[in-house]
């Protein structure tokens, strides 16, 4: 159910999306996927105790579809039961050179001149034992718990 609406002339529009994580995971890469009107996106985890932690934020330029690969020692370790939260921002005004005709409304569609709000996230699952070992390894390295 896509209910986004990006009115013509609007300079700062936000969308939010959520995905429940049912298993322990290790995230290896983050790639935002927006279209001509996107400006930036942030990836956040909401833990079961309602703590929130921003994992990454990146500006968006439609000319560059960049995958951001995490270094191994900072790859986010997300415990099962968490919620991923992705926030995206858009600019459908003349201040955005990619927004070719800000006189008009824009919504979801397949064209570059329509919009999307995806986050491509590469990850693999961990057993409880593997997850605990990975967290312990982070703590031993003085890099924090890794999952918070």
């Amino acid at each position, binding site marked *: *159910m*896509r*209910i*986004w*609406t*990006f*009115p*013509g*002339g*609007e300079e*700062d*529009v*936000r*969308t*939010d*999306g*959520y*995905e429940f994580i049912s298993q322990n*995971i*290790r995230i290896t890469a983050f790639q935002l996927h927006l279209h001509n009107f996107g400006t930036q996106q942030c990836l956040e985890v909401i833990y079961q105790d309602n703590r929130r932690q921003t994992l990454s934020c990146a500006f968006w330029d439609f000319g560059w579809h960049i995958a951001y690969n995490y270094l191994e020692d900072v790859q986010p370790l997300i415990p099962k039961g968490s919620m*991923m939260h*992705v926030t*995206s*921002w*858009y600019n459908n005004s003349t201040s955005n050179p990619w927004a*070719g*005709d*800000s*006189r*008009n*409304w824009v*919504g*979801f*569609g*397949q*064209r570059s*001149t*329509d919009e999307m*709000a*995806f*986050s*491509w*996230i*590469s*990850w*693999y*699952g*961990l057993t409880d034992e*593997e997850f605990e*070992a*990975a967290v312990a*390894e982070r703590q031993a390295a003085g890099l924090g718990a890794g999952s918070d």
Partner: protein
Amino acid sequence: MVIRNKHAMYNGLLTLLLTLPLTSVSGVATAQILHRFGQSIQPVYEGFEQNSDGSYTLWFGYLNLNFDEAPDVELGASNSFQLASGVIIAGPVDQDLILENAGPIDRGQPTHFYPRRQQFVFSVEVPSDFIDKELIWTLTYNGETRTAVGSIEKGNIWGVDEGVWSANRGRGTNGRTGVAYSNQPPALRMVGVEGQLSAAVGNPDFRQ
């Protein structure tokens, strides 16, 4: 931690589709508040295509911002087409920009509006000399006036071909059957460099 196997990695490609309703956001316009009733209708310009005789077909659709309310908006000031020149901003059109010979307000637009997004609902044909003009569909409902600005400018944005049609409407029932379409690879040419190019490992500069 070692990736256990490729299969696990590929299965681990997670796509987060951001389509869920969100909580309210302060400071910025929000794109995702869900309303069952009480909202207006956004007319939408879908794009244009040139016909074999040189004329153009302009496509329009709409987004009824309500999830349940399906209103009727009769033809007239609240549901009309106007011809203008020099429109540069969204919203109600400056009356000074309206051309004298605006043509009929009835261009085949709907008067009953189903909930949510309805793409490529109807089309309007304009002549081949429709240059520097805008065909504007204005809808006023629930106290709000919204517009769609149709023109034949910016073909890179608004050009509609079978690829656009197929991607957004599919083929078959919702698509345009009987129209041949196959995607074509792009053709690339480097200005000033003709003929076959070669590069070697460790020496990627083909000019050497």
